[in-house]
């Protein structure tokens, strides 16, 4: 990834050295990583609104409004995944590593895979353990 904004569902305060949230819809904050010419230029966070049953399009719209280009998830449900595709946000998948930094670095260097339809979990919970 040469340019763009990456979002990572995060626990606590988030940040590049923070921990990812395994539960997309229930994360505390989204960490935003702005990339220019293949390098990290800026890091910010955005609180995730309270989760409401059936409200999984709310964070989809939130990230779209904040010009996010790519999202890294440990797990995501089919409806929000299709929602992200609808608004043009690419969704990448890593269900193993809980730290933010290595998955961001892998995405920037083109090593992180786009999530496949058969990797969608039953719900918005992820493969990285408890939310």
């Amino acid at each position, binding site marked *: 990834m040469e340019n763009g904004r990456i979002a990572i569902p995060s626990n606590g305060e988030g940040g590049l050295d923070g921990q990812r949230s395994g539960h997309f819809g229930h994360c505390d904050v989204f960490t935003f990583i702005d990339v220019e010419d293949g390098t990290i230029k800026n890091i910010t966070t955005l609180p995730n*609104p309270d989760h*409401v*049953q*059936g409200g999984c399009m709310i964070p989809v719209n939130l990230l779209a409004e904040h010009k996010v280009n790519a999202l890294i998830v440990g797990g995501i*449900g*089919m409806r*929000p995944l299709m*929602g992200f595709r*609808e608004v043009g946000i690419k969704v990448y998948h890593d269900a193993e590593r809980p730290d933010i930094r290595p998955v961001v670095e892998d995405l920037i260097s083109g090593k992180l895979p786009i999530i496949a339809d058969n990797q969608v979990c039953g719900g918005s919970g992820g493969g990285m353990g408890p939310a």
Partner: protein
Amino acid sequence: MGNLLLVSPDRTSLASLEKVIRQKKGFKIHWAKSGSSALAAVQKNAYVLAVVDEDLGDMTGLELVRRFIAVNPMLNCAIVSGLEHKAFHEASEGLGILIQLPVQPGEQDAVALLQHLNRILNLTNSLANKTGDQD
């Protein structure tokens, strides 16, 4: 508030729900008698909510909601299901369903559904307004 789609081969199944919704201003109710006709309607028109019965004859309600997602993931859906809570949760995970309605939903269920829909719509509008302020 917009168009609302009721999907059931048997209108009496959702009659109490329809009665309450008709008492609220702002909704225009449309009916589809089967899953395939509902899919065709969603491909052509914009709806703020679809309420789907449990068995549609040509497919189950859950199958229709899965197909809705492929057509329009932004569509809010409520579904009638006789499954107990845990089984329903497992069967519907990832589909982002607003609310599980009991078989033959009553007027109180309709009120709860509309309250929940309003909450979702208000959150969405609030988000849009905040973002607009920032821009």
